[in-house]
């Protein structure tokens, strides 16, 4: 009895609990004026002391953006976004260079602690280098020494522009050109900061690289730009995790992630996204429009995307792989959870161009409350992609009779040696499984948690250890309580 009560208590807390990470930090911001004009673009570029070519790139992107219309093909409904009512740049006031954590603003450290990310702890225990991005500007980068030993470059993109302009110039916009889509053009024009990583030839990065993003100042859109390059034989596992403070007004996030792998190189990109999903009444929340794409440029190269999406009011995200090199491999593992009034339209694109290319898509959608969760994916086998192989599986789980689960795969095959398979199922948790668990003495709530975790296991297993733990917690928080 008391157990049951306790469970109910947990349940109550979970369902009625407010967003755990909803708080606003009081860090002074240095903001660009509201609205987007050529002046804004020039302001950002000047603020960041950028070379002429980058300003040109931004301006070209901005001019192109003006000619575009916001896409409306996704199964998403939101009030129109007023792009002129957004502050496009906000950076904490520049402070003197810091040598150790002790010098970091205690308020900032406190924030990290609230987030459950203790930099010291992470440094000591997990060996993860954290490049923490607070409102667009990289504040503190750790583990630089270890990385320097292997000649690995891991810094903010702003620093990279200053210190490694040739590398940035060579790769920026090659995977996601500014003409790619509406949000890519917007990002290219106004991107504020993000991470840059370069793995030199033959280097296996000994630690997992990680960036924690946070959106802080009110009404500030975040326009991250991440660029990862693995040269011949390089390997890196990159982690990205996000939390955001509670806001009533919707915040726009339009990021770009570009990945390039050369011959025999491999990049593993893992994301846990837990931005503010809006209140239970569907008010507020982050609008997340992200363009993520990897280019397997070299032979035998590999790019693997793993994502756990639990946050954001709107998720519009299709991490993709262009399998250009022969024998290259693309993978996409995704768990997307929506609750209350969240909407997610997410999936992947696998473009087979090289010979003997392989791709795997495992997508698990879970919808609860009044949310809508869509998988949208493309598998394209071009005419020259002999022996291409794709396997896709996208399952949807419905918890509650007010939510929606949708699957929109597109399969385009233009080669007779290709083997493409797609499977999808949609159902609710089977009564048999629930009954079995319950007759063994596992209560309903726990049984559902168990089944959902088992359902998502295939994807969660792909996450690095630290993330897997966090992801399981997130799943539990987002779900256990939406059913009953």
């Amino acid at each position, binding site marked *: 009895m008391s157990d049951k009560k306790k469970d109910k208590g947990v349940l109550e807390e979970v369902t009625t609990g407010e967003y755990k990470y909803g708080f606003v930090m009081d860090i002074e911001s240095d903001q660009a004026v509201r609205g987007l004009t050529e002046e804004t673009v020039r302001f950002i570029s000047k603020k960041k002391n950028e070379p002429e070519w980058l300003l040109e790139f931004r301006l070209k992107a901005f001019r192109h953006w003006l*000619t575009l*219309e916001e896409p409306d*093909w996704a*199964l998403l409904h939101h009030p129109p976004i007023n792009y002129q009512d957004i502050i496009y740049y906000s950076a904490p006031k520049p402070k003197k260079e810091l040598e150790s954590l002790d010098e970091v603003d205690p308020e900032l450290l406190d924030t990290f602690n609230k987030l459950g990310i203790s930099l010291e702890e992470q440094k000591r225990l997990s060996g993860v280098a954290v490049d923490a991005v607070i409102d667009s500007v990289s504040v503190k980068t750790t583990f630089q020494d270890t990385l320097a030993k292997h000649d690995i470059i891991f810094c903010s993109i702003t620093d990279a522009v200053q210190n490694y302009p040739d590398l940035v110039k060579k790769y920026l916009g090659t995977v996601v050109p500014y003409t790619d889509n509406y949000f890519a053009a917007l990002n290219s024009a106004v991107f504020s900061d993000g991470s840059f990583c370069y793995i030199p030839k033959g280097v296996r990065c000994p630690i997992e690289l990680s960036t924690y993003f946070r959106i802080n100042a009110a009404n500030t859109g975040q326009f991250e730009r991440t660029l990862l390059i693995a040269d011949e034989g390089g390997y890196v596992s990159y982690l990205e995790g996000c939390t955001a403070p509670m806001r009533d007004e919707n915040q726009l996030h339009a990021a770009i992630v570009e990945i390039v792998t050369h011959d025999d190189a491999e990049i593993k990109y893992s994301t846990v996204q837990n931005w503010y999903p809006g209140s239970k009444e569907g008010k507020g929340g982050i609008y997340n429009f992200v363009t993520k794409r990897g280019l397997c440029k070299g032979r035998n190269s590999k790019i693997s995307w793993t994502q756990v999406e639990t946050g954001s009011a709107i998720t519009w995200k299709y991490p993709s792989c262009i399998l250009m090199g022969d024998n290259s491999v693309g993978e996409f593992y995704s768990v997307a959870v929506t609750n209350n009034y969240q909407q997610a339209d997410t999936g992947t694109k696998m473009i087979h161009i090289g010979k003997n290319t392989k791709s795997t898509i495992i997508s698990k959608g879970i919808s609860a409350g009044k949310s809508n969760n869509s998988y949208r994916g493309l598998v394209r*086998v071009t*005419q020259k992609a002999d022996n291409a192989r794709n396997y896709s599986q996208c399952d*949807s789980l*419905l*918890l*509650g*009779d*007010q*939510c*929606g*689960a*949708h*699957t*929109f*795969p*597109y*399969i*385009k*095959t*233009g*080669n*007779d*040696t*290709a*083997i*493409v*398979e*797609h*499977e*999808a*199922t*949609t*159902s*609710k948790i089977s009564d048999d499984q629930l009954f079995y668990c319950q007759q063994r003495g596992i209560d309903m709530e726990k049984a559902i948690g168990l089944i959902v975790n088992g359902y998502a296991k295939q994807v969660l297993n792909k996450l690095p250890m630290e993330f897997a733990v966090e992801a399981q917690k997130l799943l539990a928080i987002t779900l256990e309580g939406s059913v009953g």
Partner: protein
Amino acid sequence: MEKVKKRYPLEEKFIRHFTGHSDEISRHDLPKVSRMRREAMKDFQRSGFPHNKMERWRNTDLEGIYETDLEIFDREIPYEKQLSEIFLCEVHGFETRVLSVLNGSFYSPETEKLTVDENGVIVGSLARAMQEYPEFIERHYGEIMEQRDGFKSLNMALATDGVFIYVPDNVVVDETFQIINILNKPSLVINVRNLVILGKNAKLRLLHCDDSVNHHAGFINKVNEVFLDENAELELYKLQNLNDETALLNQTSIHQSANSRLKIDAISLNGGMIRNEIFDLMNGSGAWSDIRGLYLMDQEQHVDNQVNIYHNVPHCDSNQLFKGILDNEATAVFNGYIYVKRDAQQTNAFQRNANILLAKTARVDTMPHLEIYADDVQCSHGASVGQLDNEALFYMMQRGIPFADARMLLMYAFADAVIDEISIESLRINIEDMVKRRLRGDLSICDRCVLHCSNPDQPVIFDIDMSKI
């Protein structure tokens, strides 16, 4: 930014035709129908032809047809000679009641334009039914028009004739009805409409053939409306064997009442451009449908199957199976869509599309989509593109079956899942023959009815010496 859409001369031609001939087009109309025509024309003037920027038309490019100079034909053809002189259709081993539509209008002697059988079944010309049985038109004509696009509007505005079938309550029709749709004049574009109504507990088998009798280009824009009342059962077999120059747009909308059963087998053997759109609206609890399709395409042919199932109420079952074999530069599109409305609980909906590519230049685009708003459902879809099983080939070859035969056998086995469902045995045998011939390349362009191609006295068999196995 307002995008200016290009106007095709053919679009202009349709619009001019409508304004110039509106009296003639509307001569038999009920007020409801003429009102619908005017509205549809307005819609068409606004939308124009569908184009490949539209999601549903992305993979089917009709630009070539829009650019062709086609003649709009909507005249009634006087009955001068028997249909068999224009078009020969001998279906061996089974009798059908033939209803023919020649160049867009019902073709029969005057006395047989619209007949009422002893059991109350009304069959004949739609134009005639509009005058004699307005109550059916009032109730059903143009009532289910899901996903209206330019072609549907055009058809609504311009179609004047087609086949009308009414089966009253509790009548089980023994004979098989066969609609034969033919073009025999060069460069025609026709808008034709069929209306099929089945009363409570009624049962009908319908064979629906589209054939070419020559090698002229043509464009058929056809809309079929089917109403199944409670517990009604319809078996619909569509056979499409057209020349490579003809484009066929076949839109079938079905309204299913409670416990009604629908079975569709759509077999596309040949045709320059074939697009089958099926809209199955499950509006009554306990409705059931099984929709299958087979397409065998080669050269530069294009086939597009759009199957949309709307589960609007609880306790309905649907199943889709579409299979295709593509050779040369042929292209195929499959767009399966299952929609489960909120509270349509206890739905079972399955969908499967399998394709075999035989040439490097053949292409398949498959989009098996699900949109589900109810939780107590079981829905699944699967799609695959691949080749013949090499191990099976090897096994057969090591048993002494020549490569070509082994390959044929596998392809035939692949197609069989669709053909096997045909419940009229003689029809199944005929279609089996045709598929075999088609796969062997003996049936590339058939000048006559597809069913006529097969000769039951000389069944097509594989040259396999069974003793070797």
